[in-house]
């Protein structure tokens, strides 16, 4: 199960006694199991911070995060994460990157290898399993990063603008692949993005953040059936609505 509850979370960054930034203020959010949720908001609004708090890499100053009623205090293998930067270990080959998580969890190398092949197949990179990260393109690196996160069989997959650094075509095809992976696996996905198009194409629900300090401005339910047509009337209507909300925030 992957039910995520964020309860009254605030996070303040203290530089020195005078300069403090309130990144998140009183965030309350409930995510259903197997839901695909996108976070969107003006840059610097704390959406990445919230994701990091849910992953356990950051701790809130106030409030708590629960996954299936279990409080999160530190990072753990039940929450996979895909970063915006390329995070593959450059000293490990593709397959060794993918088996890293399972091996840390005590799975034997032989069993992990067999499993890892499946995940590489899922992202279409079986033939590159012995390559090193520097030999891969940006899109391929992020595919491996997804396979590596999935190899731990997480209940929640946290994605921090994973396709932000990719070109438009690669991004579109990876969005499509991500949806098909999400439909095959039992996964709750939390996806931070700055692209309205991306959010509308992917999400069950879109959480819109205000400008700093980040608060939830609106939660938009997306009822358009998948596969979604990126240029249909209803998609455009929703995009229009979201863009309006976003520009309200950016003008503040």
């Amino acid at each position: 199960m992957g039910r995520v509850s964020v309860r009254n979370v605030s996070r303040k960054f203290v530089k020195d006694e005078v300069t403090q930034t309130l990144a998140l203020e009183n965030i309350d959010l409930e995510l259903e199991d197997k839901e695909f949720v996108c976070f969107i908001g003006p840059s610097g609004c704390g959406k990445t911070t919230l994701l990091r708090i849910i992953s356990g890499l950051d701790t809130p100053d106030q409030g708590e995060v629960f996954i299936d009623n279990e409080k999160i205090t530190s990072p753990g293998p039940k929450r996979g994460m895909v970063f915006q930067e390329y995070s593959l270990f450059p000293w490990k080959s593709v397959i060794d990157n993918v088996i890293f998580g399972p091996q840390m969890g005590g799975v034997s190398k032989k069993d992990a290898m067999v499993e890892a092949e499946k995940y590489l197949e899922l992202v279409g990179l079986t033939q590159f399993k012995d390559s090193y990260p520097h030999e891969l393109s940006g899109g391929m690196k992020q595919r491996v990063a997804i396979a590596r996160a999935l190899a731990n069989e997480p209940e929640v997959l946290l994605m921090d603008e994973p396709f932000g650094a990719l070109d438009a075509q690669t991004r579109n095809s990876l969005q499509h692949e991500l949806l098909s992976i999400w439909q095959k696996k039992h996964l709750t996905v939390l996806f931070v993005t700055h692209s309205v198009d991306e959010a509308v194409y992917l999400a069950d629900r879109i959480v819109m953040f205000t400008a700093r300090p980040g608060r939830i401005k609106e939660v938009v339910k997306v009822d358009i059936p998948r596969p979604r047509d990126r240029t249909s009337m209803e998609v455009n209507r929703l995009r229009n609505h979201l863009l309006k909300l976003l520009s309200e925030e950016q003008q503040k």
Partner: protein
Amino acid sequence: MVRVGFQNLKNKGVEILSIISALVIWQLIAVYVVQNKFFLPSFTDVSLAFVSVVSRQVDFPLSFLSFSMDIPLPVLVVDLLFSMMHFLIGLIAALAIGMPVGMLMGWFRSVDRIFDPLIEIVRPIPPLAWIPFAIIWIGLNPFGAGFVIFIGALFPIIINTFTGFKNIPRIYVEAAKVLGCNTDRDLIRQVALPSALPSIVAGVRIAMGVGWMCLVAAEMFGVSKNGLGFKIWHHYYLHNMDFVLVYMLVLGFLGLLIDRLLRYYLEGRFLKWRTGVVM
């Protein structure tokens, strides 16, 4: 094969010409200008001296546990073996102590704060200034010489290991954490060490260079009757300046060779993944 070799030689024409010209000029100056074998031995004097140290044999006392025997070997080879022994004692000790210290300082802020002031005070002391204490603490034996080389090699290893650990990209540590690698021990072994390895290898190279520089002085104070550095002083006292120059050149070439071997071996073996990243 021969043709490829010939092609290589042809491409290196300028370099080869440069070396040959230097040798010719040296020979001419020594024979016609200086005209004093003590002041400047000529290239031919040095070559003859080299032949002599290679052809003359002495017994090398090999002992291993209770087993011991004397093996006749050329003088130069015996000196080389003794020097390598001193060098390796120092270097291995420096690695065994410097790497863990550098790693702990780089990983734990508190360890850094404890060791940093001490290291900064001791580090500027030239390794050769430790010779009196090397003699008193350890005595006139190979370990005494090794100690001086150890001091020279220790700090580059500590500092480069430390720097490597300080510069680990945070993203790798965070990626490892969310994948379930959470203890300090696992993070150091799985992430920090491989990520810092290029810097550590660079430190070992510097350390070997400094250690090699310390070798002559380390052997000077009479730790053994053999060794490349010892022989420089030995022949100086005998006024055999051609032999002094032979040992100087051997030290130079050997230093070069060790550095090249290390580069090709370590970088080929451990740092393959870096091709295309930095170099």
